């Protein structure tokens, strides 16, 4: 422990404290403490401002794998402050967001472009038009620019990409998002209410379980309601199935992007079988209506667990036939090896999370770093690769899937073992009333990486603030880095190897 650590409030993942207990430091001290903490191997999980009496309180949420706890520390700012980004590049997207939402200027930030082109929170502030902003440019003979989107060629969400090219080589890819902005964080304030869980379930549809269960644990932290062990098992099942389904789809899509049809075809079908397992649990392929604060809406009896186990066995056999095929085919590996490299140093500096970070040799995983829920007692190690290329991001997915298969198997066995244990369902009403003036932090490892939710309540126990950080928020810049000095024709492959969420970013 260093001296500066003592000024940070460390709390367990999924806990709440009175907002007044969060340390408030002087700006200079705060900047130093946050920078020190990040230099010491911790992560910037969230950085945000809350308006308070004509000024703003800046909060940093820091994940500490060494302590297995989350640090929170704050400062007050009026108008502007010296930016963190120059010392801590992982703050760059957050500081753009703070400027866009509140007009608080992080001085010295390289470029405070809009992140989402939102309606300004501050009255009278300029309202940006989507996509209308400055872009990086390049000058010289045979230099050209390629613009793509917002509407893309495939069945995919919208976003705008600009490539600065010389011949076929991309010097820089600029990613401009915001097309999917639906106002979720704004709408969550004043809750929880009947709509709240639906906002969480649709924040990023392919991460329904990740966001919904992170929210549920946050509400449980605020109220002190403990979900039953069975509920925790069912949630963990949902999350691991979500991971398997998406990784499977991604592997198929990666195979497709290099023209290897067998794995593409098999994985696209198997992904559906995994989604069908989730539907066996709750009726919906994406885990909608599965989890609620205090528990889950659907129980698993022995018969259902057995049926799930049979499906899992068949899926595993299909996967073992379909996926290694791709890794054993030289023409596939030739396209993926060395393509779209993100170095370990860059991955740490920009704060990458999830499989993208692990493929570059950064062993971050909330399931291990900040343990939570039913995952605690599962045997688990974090797989990593070192190459940081598309091949690494593909093989990390396959390693994680195989782990998830074993975890799902263990969770089903645990659910059967606990068959007679009491269930805690129908407790949603009990957690509708939240205690006032509290702040809660909840993190999970979704399939794309770290999901971080922070909420504060007002004196009446309503959300006065709700911050969601989807892993894509950390990782979009990683995709930009991976494209540097690549052929523009490798963009689909690099893009798919990250497969980030547009709506999870835009909220």
């Amino acid at each position, binding site marked *: 422990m260093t001296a500066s650590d003592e000024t940070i409030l460390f709390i367990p993942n999924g806990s709440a404290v009175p907002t007044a207990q969060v340390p408030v430091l002087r700006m200079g001290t705060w900047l130093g403490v946050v920078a020190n903490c990040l230099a010491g191997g911790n992560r910037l999980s969230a950085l945000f401002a809350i308006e308070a009496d004509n000024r703003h309180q800046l909060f940093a949420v820091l994940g500490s794998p060494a302590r297995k706890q989350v640090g929170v520390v704050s400062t007050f700012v009026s108008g502007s402050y010296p930016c963190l980004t120059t010392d801590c590049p992982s703050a760059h997207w957050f500081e753009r967001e703070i400027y866009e939402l509140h007009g608080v200027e992080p001085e010295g930030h390289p470029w405070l472009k809009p992140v*989402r*082109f*939102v*309606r300004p929170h501050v009255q009278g502030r300029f309202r940006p038009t*989507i996509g209308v902003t400055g872009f990086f440019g390049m000058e010289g003979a045979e230099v050209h620019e390629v613009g793509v989107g*917002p*509407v893309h060629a*495939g*069945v*995919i*969400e*919208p976003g705008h990409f600009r490539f600065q090219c010389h011949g076929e080589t991309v010097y820089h890819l600029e990613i401009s998002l*915001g*097309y*999917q*902005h*639906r*106002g979720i964080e*704004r*709408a969550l304030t004043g809750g929880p*209410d*009947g*709509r709240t869980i*639906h*906002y969480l379930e*649709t*924040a*990023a*549809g*392919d991460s*329904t379980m990740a966001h919904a269960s992170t929210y549920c644990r946050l509400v449980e932290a605020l109220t002190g309601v403990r979900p039953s062990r069975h509920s925790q098992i069912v949630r963990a099942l949902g999350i691991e199935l979500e991971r398997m389904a998406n990784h499977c*789809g991604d592997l198929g899509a990666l195979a497709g992007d290099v023209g290897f049809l*067998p794995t593409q*075809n*098999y994985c*696209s*079908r198997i992904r*559906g079988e995994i989604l*069908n397992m989730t*539907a*066996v*649990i*709750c*009726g*919906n*392929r*994406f885990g*909608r*209506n599965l989890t609620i604060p205090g528990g889950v809406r*659907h129980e698993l009896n022995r018969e259902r667990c057995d049926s799930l186990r049979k499906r899992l066995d068949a899926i595993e056999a*299909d996967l073992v*036939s*379909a996926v290694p*095929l791709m890794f*054993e*085919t030289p023409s596939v590996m030739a396209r993926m090896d060395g393509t779209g490299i993100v170095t370990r140093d860059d991955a740490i500096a920009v704060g990458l999370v999830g499989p993208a970070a692990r493929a570059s040799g950064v062993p971050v995983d909330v399931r291990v770093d900040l343990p939570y829920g039913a995952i605690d007692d599962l045997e688990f190690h974090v797989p990593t690769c070192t190459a940081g290329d598309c091949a690494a991001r593909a093989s990390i997915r396959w390693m994680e899937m195989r782990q998830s298969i074993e975890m799902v198997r263990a969770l089903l066995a645990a659910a059967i073992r606990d068959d007679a244990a009491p269930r805690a369902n129908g407790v949603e009403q009990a957690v509708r009333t939240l205690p006032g003036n509290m702040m809660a932090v909840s993190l999970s490892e979704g399939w794309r990486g770290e999901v971080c939710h922070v909420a504060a309540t007002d004196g009446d126990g309503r959300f006065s603030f709700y911050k969601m950080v989807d892993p894509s928020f950390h990782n979009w810049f990683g995709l930009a880095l991976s494209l540097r000095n690549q052929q523009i024709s490798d963009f689909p492959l690099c893009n798919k190897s990250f497969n980030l*969420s*547009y*709506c999870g970013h*835009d909220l």
Partner: protein
Amino acid sequence: MLRVLKARFFQGYRTMKYPRGSVPELPDRFQGRPRLEGTCPEGCRACADACPYGAITVGARPDGSNAGVAGMPVELDMGRCLFCGNCAAACPSKNIAFTRNWQLAAARREDLVITAESPRRASCLSATAKKYYYKSLKLRQVSAAGCNACEADSNVLGTPAWDMGRFGIQFVASPRHADALLITGPVSENMALALEKTWAALPGPRLAIACGTCAIGGGPFLDHPETLNGACTTVPIDLFIPGCPPHPLTILDALLRFQGIKVTDSP
């Protein structure tokens, strides 16, 4: 090469027999078309109060006319419904149930509003689709703030198990190549112009499909200033497919009946 052949043999032929043969298995907890039946206690509004999206009207409609039928003055608008089941859970008389009927879509918006006397399915037929696109329907998909669930379960129809290419239905890369636009999402302000331009790029006769409750009526983002409550205000819609997201079977059933192709009906 031998490994590829071995895997091909192992994976087998997986395209389903539907719509001619057996219907793909739906999960037993599937929440499909709601069924309203029974008699409601005088003045009970439990179902309407349980829905934060105003999908359920009890008694008088905003225009003063009466909702539903005698004894059960309730109507449920699937164009606003997320199929969460909260209304069914709240009903003290158990008059609302979400059945396993997957046939949710309709060609007319008003057919999504169901009462105790509604038929088991609404017509999806488009005379234009049947006349021009019976054997080949090319779709351009635009996600306008869709959460990627409707997109995923539309996209899955192109995979070998569903293989909608059997019916000449295919997603294409350019609106210039498309006969119909398949729209997902509540249409964010930030996507409105892109959606308009994509629609303008479709050659006629063109059709539009709203896939998912968001695209029909805004879904969970109903009345958000950041969204436009679905695609209807931007594009004239010819086919409405409710669900959050709709099951692939619901989408395929809708597309096939849209073209006038015979399908196996839900029991």
